[in-house]
C-alpha cells in the first residue's frame, strides 16, 4: 500500500517538492537572510546592529519545532518509504572545527548557503561568485577528506 503511495503520484510529488523550495526561498527573501548587509549587521553589536536575524531564527525554529513533532508521529513521509533523519549524536572535533570555520567564512562574506542559493534567482553576479567559491570549497574539502581517509 505504501509503495503504491510513494511511487505513484509522481507529478504531485515533484510539484509539492518544488513548492517547498519556493516557500523556503520566499522566506529567505522576505526575512532579509538574502541580504549580506543585514546578516552582518546582526553580528555587529559594536557597530550598525540590526537584531532582525533573531526574529528569523525564532520564527523558523519555532515553526519547525512544532511541525516536526506532528510530522514525526507518522510511520513514514508521504512520498518516501522512510524518514531520513541523522542519527549521529557524537560531538567530535570535526563538527566543532567545521562549524567554527563556517562561521569565519560567514563573517567574511555575509552569505550562508541558505541565503545565497535563493539569491541566485536574482542572477546577481556577486551571488554567482560566492556560490562558485562555495562549491569549490565543498569539492576541495571532499578531495582532502577522501585522500586522508585512504591513508
Amino acid at each position, binding site marked *: 500500500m505504501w509503495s503504491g503511495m510513494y511511487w505513484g503520484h509522481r507529478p504531485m510529488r515533484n510539484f509539492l517538492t518544488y513548492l517547498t*523550495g519556493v516557500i523556503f526561498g*520566499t522566506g529567505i527573501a*522576505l526575512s532579509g537572510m538574502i541580504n549580506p548587509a543585514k546578516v552582518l549587521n546582526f553580528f*555587529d553589536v559594536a557597530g550598525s546592529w540590526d537584531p532582525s536575524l533573531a526574529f528569523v531564527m525564532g520564527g523558523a525554529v519555532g515553526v519547525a519545532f512544532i511541525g516536526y513533532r506532528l510530522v514525526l508521529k507518522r510511520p513514514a513521509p508521504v512520498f518516501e518509504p522512510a524518514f531520513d533523519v541523522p542519527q549521529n549524536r557524537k560531538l567530535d572535533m570535526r563538527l566543532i572545527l567545521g562549524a*567554527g570555520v563556517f562561521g569565519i567564512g560567514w563573517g567574511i562574506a*555575509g552569505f550562508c*548557503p541558505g*541565503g545565497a542559493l*535563493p539569491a541566485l534567482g536574482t542572477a546577481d553576479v556577486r551571488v554567482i561568485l560566492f556560490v562558485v567559491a562555495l562549491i569549490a570549497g*565543498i569539492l576541495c574539502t571532499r578531495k582532502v577528506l577522501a585522500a586522508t581517509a585512504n591513508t
Partner: protein
Amino acid sequence: METTFTPVLSLIGGGLIGLAAVLLMLLRGKILGATGILAGALRPASRNDFVWRALMLAGMISGPWVYFSVFGGLPAIEVPVSTGYLLLGGFVVGIGVTLASGCTSGHGVCGMARLSPRSFVATGTFMLTTGITVYVVRHVLGA
C-alpha cells in the same frame, strides 16, 4: 552600512523557512539543509535523489520572484565587502559546512528544532566565530 530593523517581515520569513522544513520532512522525510541539498546534488546517490534536490534548488531560486510579484521589486542584496572577501568567504564556508555536515538551515533551524545536541553545539560555535570575525573585520582591520 545601516540596515532597517524588520521584526515583522523577519518573523514571517522565518516562519516560512520553518514551514518549508516541516513540509520537506512530511513529503520526503528529509532535513532541509541548504548545504546538504547542494552538496548531495553535486554527487547524487540515485536519480530520485538528484530529482528532489534539483526541484528544491529550482524552488529556492524562484523565491525572489515570489517576493517580486508581491512587492514589485527584487529583495535588496547589499554586499558590503570586496569581491576578494566574497570569494574567500565562499571558499571558507564551503570547507566549514562540509566538515560540519551543515550550516544555518540544517543545524541552526532543522537540527535545533529536533533538539539534536550536535546541532546545538554547531550553531553555538558558528554564531560565536561569525561574531568574532565580523568584529575583527570591521573594528580591528577596519575593512
